[in-house]
């Protein structure tokens, strides 16, 4: 008998993602994005995203079914992002998932978006070993998770105290006059600059922070330091070496993320690291993580970029994992939770 077929729905931000997963095999992943409608505002506008989700939902489900070559009637369970994310967008996905659950007479699993970013790697690189460390970094999240079991054993070791890594990139991008979202532009510029040109601060790496914040991140001070450096130069009528600023800033972010993550792996004796979330597309982070993991003898797993940005496959993967472990399904009155804690994998 083949493994159950799970349909996953993701709507926590601007992407409408729908995917079909059977066991740990991805059949098809369909994504519609409203990013083009937000770019001119310099950030995601929740109401614009919500309107786009409503219009994209049924067409994206149809596209996923066609791509996977299955009928809706064959689906054994529905998984949906319950949080964290933007309330308006989350609400659309949850309502659609509940209606599908009723209409098909199949169980519903509300799952955690951030943990989904780690879970998706099992579809790409196979089952996790007994223990993995997961670094989930995006425009909205920067979290370090110790994973004994992706459904029943996730421990949050740390997270950002202020800006997420991708958020800091977007803000520095704006400071440097780059288009939104700034992340990819800084990444590109940084490859042409000198990462050692300017020594920007590494947040929460001082000895005094190690007791309480060994695995937490802070990028707000770094962002301010970059702004101060650029403004002081500008006020003095000096040219801004944009590529060097981008490279030095990106190096600071990658340094802190990888140093703390490797330290956590050593501390907990974990030899496999998964990096997920949209910011794992960042080449400075990828390069430094590869070098440091090799030095430390840690296996590095990063899913392809289309599975790092928000997608339905990550939600279907986590729903499928929940189903396989016999976790109780969610109730039809499940609430969405914009700040869903990472100790909750399912609701």
């Amino acid at each position, binding site marked *: 008998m083949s493994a159950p077929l799970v349909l996953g729905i993701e709507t926590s931000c601007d992407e409408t993602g729908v995917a079909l997963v059977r066991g740990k095999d991805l059949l098809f992943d369909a994504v519609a994005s409203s990013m083009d409608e937000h770019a001119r*505002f*310099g*950030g995601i*506008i929740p*109401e*614009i995203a*919500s*309107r786009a*989700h*409503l219009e994209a*939902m*049924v067409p994206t*489900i*149809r596209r996923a079914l066609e791509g996977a070559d299955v009928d*809706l009637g064959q689906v054994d369970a529905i998984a949906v992002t319950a949080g964290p994310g933007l*309330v*308006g967008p989350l*609400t*659309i996905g*949850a*309502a*659609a*998932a*509940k*209606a*599908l*659950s*009723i*209409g*098909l*007479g199949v169980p519903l699993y509300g799952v955690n978006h951030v943990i989904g970013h780690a879970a998706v790697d099992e579809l790409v690189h196979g089952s996790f070993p007994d223990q993995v460390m997961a670094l989930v970094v995006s425009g909205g999240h920067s979290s370090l998770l110790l994973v004994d079991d992706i459904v029943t054993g996730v421990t949050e070791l740390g997270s950002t105290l202020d800006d997420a890594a991708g958020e800091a990139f977007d803000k520095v991008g*704006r*400071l440097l006059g780059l288009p939104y979202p700034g992340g990819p532009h800084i990444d590109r510029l940084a490859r042409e600059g000198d990462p050692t040109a300017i020594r920007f601060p590494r947040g929460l790496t001082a000895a005094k922070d190690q007791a309480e914040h060994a695995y937490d991140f802070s990028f707000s001070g770094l962002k*301010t330091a970059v*702004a*101060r450096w650029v*403004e*002081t130069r500008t*006020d*003095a009528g000096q040219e801004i070496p944009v590529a060097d600023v981008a490279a030095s800033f990106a190096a600071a972010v990658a340094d802190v993320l990888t140093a703390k993550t490797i330290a956590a792996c050593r501390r907990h004796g974990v030899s496999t690291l998964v990096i997920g979330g949209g910011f794992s597309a960042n080449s400075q982070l990828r390069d430094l993580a590869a070098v440091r993991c090799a030095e430390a003898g840690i296996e590095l797993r990063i899913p392809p970029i289309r599975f790092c940005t928000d997608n339905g496959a990550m939600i279907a993967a986590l729903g499928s994992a929940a189903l396989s472990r016999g976790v109780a399904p969610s*109730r*039809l*009155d*499940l*609430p*969405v939770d914009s700040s869903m804690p990472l100790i909750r994998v399912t609701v």
Partner: protein
Amino acid sequence: MPVLALDTSAAVSVALIDAEGRTLATRVVHEERRHAEQLAPMIADVLAATGTDRTALTGIVVGTGPAPFTGLRVGLVSARALGLALDIPVHGVCGLDAIAAQAAIDLSLAAGTEVLVVTDARRREVYWARYRVAGAAPQSLRVELVAGPGVASAAQVAADGHADGAIVVGPGASLYPEQLPPVDGAPTDPDPVVLARLALARVALGEDLPTEPLYLRRPDVVAPAPRKHVVTPAARKRALA
């Protein structure tokens, strides 16, 4: 041959009616938030309470607003997804149409009477639409749209003459009785049973009933503020000295 009707424009309401328009079950929860948590259990409940197998449903009817956005979308996306799952048609009906049709019945309005329906649009505004009662018999659901739907302050709706010579009904009127004096005994929220009957009548006439939301307002977009400088003027002076 039951039809499921739902509306999330203000309260969350669900009804199951048969092909002749008879009510089999209704559920209403008057809560202006948490629509997404309320609606699905209510749908499951009307099916269970009437012993209706979900696969017996032959159509879905949904109120398309105008209404506050988040709640409205819960109803629309639920209806569309349920229609997809069951492979049955989904019909949209403007909620103000249902209130006008209900008013015509409840108040025994004569053909030709004009009705202004106003509901709460928040932000000190109302959603409004003006109708003419077209059918003669008291059970007729025939109301014709004369003007609207729109969104404006009650004072503006009155100043534009939309209430002139019309009977004013709906919850928006009781909020602004000085500008839009309501009649007694009129319905307030759209009744999903009436929505469903309107939909069946319109489908029988061959009308296409899309489920596009009547937002009537553009999204709130706050343009990004100019970036604040982190170097203070005093520090700047020192740096330049």
